[in-house]
């Protein structure tokens, strides 16, 4: 937990950070690397947590932490979909951004030790999972089989392609990628990500699954995994809701009795199954 050194900063006050690098990943998706402006220091977080990123004068949005560049640098991968994310997309090296965080629950990377790990991601959902993937790869001997399944809309939308390729190149990691709509030149899978589950080799009764993507994708993935014998408590999903505070005060992120900002965003599926099945919760 990052605690400001000021006597009583309000929980809604952001800290200034500077952009130290920027990369365009896809037509609408980019990655920024950030460093605290006043005192470059470590940014401790757990895989799966998120920050509130403030674009000066425009607004603030929840964005998952997609990695750690070492030396206290923080990485976010963002899709430009609206006012604030578009503002953030215009940031250049040296520009400033406000940060509050880290907030929320984490992927169960410690509890998963000794088990097979199955990652299922859709679209930009790969970004919040990257720190968990990195953690498993860095501590590879503590886990059983490692399966990464990823679905994107089209070949042009495959995020982190160089990394996917390098992970696939490892003998101890199984990576499978699919796209909804192929284009000429794509020799890979076409279809929904759930189709990749059948083929993947893991022991469903001794595995932990981590899911992030559109709700519909997560629902189908859960159905597939439970059909294969996986326990609902071993399946973890990252939820998205409107968020205005991230500290449990604004009410926007409520999901039944849960607050996605503080009880989530990562939930064991068993805890939210009924909520996910109901409409309009």
């Amino acid at each position: 937990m990052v605690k400001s050194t000021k006597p009583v900063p309000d929980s809604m006050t952001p800290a200034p950070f500077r952009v130290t690098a920027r990369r365009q990943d896809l037509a609408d998706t980019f990655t920024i690397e950030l460093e605290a402006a006043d005192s470059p220091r470590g940014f401790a977080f757990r895989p799966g947590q998120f920050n509130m990123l403030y674009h000066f004068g425009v607004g603030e949005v929840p964005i998952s932490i997609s990695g750690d560049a070492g030396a206290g640098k923080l990485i976010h991968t963002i899709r430009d979909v609206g006012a604030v994310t578009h503002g953030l997309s215009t940031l250049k090296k040296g520009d400033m951004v406000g940060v509050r965080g880290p907030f929320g629950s984490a992927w169960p990377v410690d509890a998963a030790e000794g088990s097979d790990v199955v990652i299922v991601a859709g679209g930009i959902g790969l970004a919040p999972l990257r720190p968990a993937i990195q953690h498993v790869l860095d501590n590879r001997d503590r886990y059983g089989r490692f399966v990464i399944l990823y679905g994107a809309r089209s070949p042009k939308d495959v995020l982190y392609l160089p990394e996917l390729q390098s992970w696939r190149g490892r003998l101890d990691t199984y990576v499978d990628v699919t796209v909804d709509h192929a284009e000429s030149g794509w020799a890979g899978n076409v279809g929904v990500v759930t189709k990749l589950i059948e083929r993947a080799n893991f022991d469903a009764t001794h595995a932990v699954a981590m899911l992030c993507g559109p709700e519909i994708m997560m629902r189908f993935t859960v159905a597939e995994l439970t059909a294969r014998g996986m326990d609902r408590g071993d399946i973890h999903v990252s939820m998205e809701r409107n968020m205005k505070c991230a500290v449990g005060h604004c009410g926007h992120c409520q999901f039944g009795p849960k607050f996605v900002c503080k009880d989530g965003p990562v939930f064991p599926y068993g805890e939210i199954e009924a909520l996910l099945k109901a409409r309009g919760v």
Partner: protein
Amino acid sequence: MTNPAKPKSSKPDAFVMDANRLDALIGALASSGHAVMGPRVADGAVILGPVAGAADLPLGVTDRQEPGRYRLKTVKKDPAYFDFAVGPHTWKKFLFPPREKLWSAERAAKGFAVREDGIDAARRDKLAFVGVRACELAAIAAQDRVLTGGEYRSETYALRREQTFIVAVNCRTSAATCFCASMNTGPGVGAGHDLALTELGGGKDHRFLVEVGSTRGEKVLMALNAKPAKPKDVAAARAAVAQAAKGQRKMPKSAPTVLAGATDSPRWADIAQRCLNCASCTQVCPTCFCNTVTDTTTLDGSGAERWRHWDSCFTLDFSYIHGGAIRGDGAHRYRQWMTHKLSHWFEQFGTSGCVGCGRCITWCPVGIDITLEARGFVKDAKGKRKG
């Protein structure tokens, strides 16, 4: 109705003062640096605002409240200061302002410098509330849990809250829309006040029983030279409060559990047909805390501000994420509101999100009654268990 007994000490904790000493009490609070807020009449309603003295209070004013209806009446005989029930305003507007500047920022060499104007303003806001009812104390305690009880605190709220002096009033009448007794929050004041008043007698005999709730309260009272109360004054006050609990609406005890299991009930669609989604209920509710923030910038782009303002789960925007609102239907939104108030709040904050003040019933333009709706769900659940 149960009120936790005050801890016994050798010092008396109940006093009596003449009704005309109310002015001295307000004066004492003002001269110790408090901005004193209390009930006063404006536009046909008892609202909350600055009071300079007892003359500003609604002496002789009483109210009649029904679903979707609110009227004031003035009585000539033995006029009382506090014989009306809660009005459309809540103390929330002072502790958690409808619009509040949280901070402003200037671009600087190393990023930007944030000035926490909200904290500065809150620090200057030394308030005293006169006339806080039992249900409202419960509502303030509920908001305390939300805004200061978790891992993160709202510092602006916490500052205002700590500095606020509270003079509570025991209700000796209640409106037809009140249901505090069934929520265990009133009509008698339990905890959370510095001083608590009960109005007694009338005319020449018009006086207040004053009970001490804190050392801060004790200090203020000592300056007023109040006399220790006689047992008969205390008994008269208790009897008056017990009277107020009679004839109230009731919230069924099983509402929290029944609503937790009513996600798919057809009743939500039925209520949604009547509900206008006007958000009036959330604006008058003393516990509703939902808010949003607006970030703005100066024309030249060198400065920025963040404002926080009240929001409502009844708006479509509230649950918006790309692709559309999560709660697109009125039925979803009413379900969110009612289930949150009466059920989810327990899981989230260990207490009810409804204190039984009845405001949402009175101020609903179509007169939707949360107790009546809750009874409908309870009836369905009983039917299901039998059938």
